[in-house]
């Protein structure tokens, strides 16, 4: 694998953080306990994603991902999906708000092109449509 030769898709940030609404997008396999788990049986990976609401109780989140040790995330989901941390930063006035949608997907895949050209765009559209996010924090496992 070589370094991507594509242009860096840099979007300038011209707001104050205290007036910025933030969304989280994680490749760490995070989803609600009552959502369908990611398919870890398929060796090609799972190209789907799950929408996580802003008012989620973090104890209702879990991880389905077989390519990293998520025992710490099982104990405290904030180590990969910092939703409670974001709430703290909002109450302190450090950020302006929490987006209406957050996204979890399972970053492991053998279908890189489909992930890059399909799933990634779908996730970007989800965030663009109705999340009201001004910026996104991305995390892996």
């Amino acid at each position, binding site marked *: *694998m070589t370094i*991507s030769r594509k242009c860096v898709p840099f979007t300038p940030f011209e707001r104050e953080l205290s007036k910025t609404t933030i969304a989280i997008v994680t490749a*760490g396999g995070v989803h609600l306990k009552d959502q369908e788990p990611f398919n870890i049986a398929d060796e090609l990976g799972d190209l789907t994603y799950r929408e996580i609401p802003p008012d989620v109780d973090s104890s209702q989140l879990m991880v389905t991902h077989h390519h990293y040790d998520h025992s710490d995330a099982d*104990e405290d989901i904030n180590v990969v999906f910092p939703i409670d941390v974001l709430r703290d*930063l909002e109450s302190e006035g450090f950020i302006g708000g929490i987006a209406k949608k957050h996204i979890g997907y399972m970053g492991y895949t053998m279908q890189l092109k489909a992930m890059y050209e399909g799933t990634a765009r779908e996730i970007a559209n989800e965030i663009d449509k109705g999340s009201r996010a001004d910026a996104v924090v991305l995390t892996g496992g």
Partner: protein
Amino acid sequence: MKGIPTVLITVSPEVSAQMRPPRALYPKGFKIGNSLGRPGMRDLQKKVLREALELLSQNTRPGEVVTIEYPEYGEQYEPPRVKKLG
């Protein structure tokens, strides 16, 4: 769609750098599965998230990963390396 600013928190800086993320933070020595720190370390988690968000408005070089040390994390881990082919 006009694009949306992003910042990545990565514990695999070499692997992430290959994709040339617009802005990225590597909390040095954090292991995979601990992007924000260890369970229950809320003050550290807040510090990491705050400093990641601050990268949005700092004059970073797109495509590079910024390394920040957090001694309060404790034991440090080696990040995965990119396998060189040939």
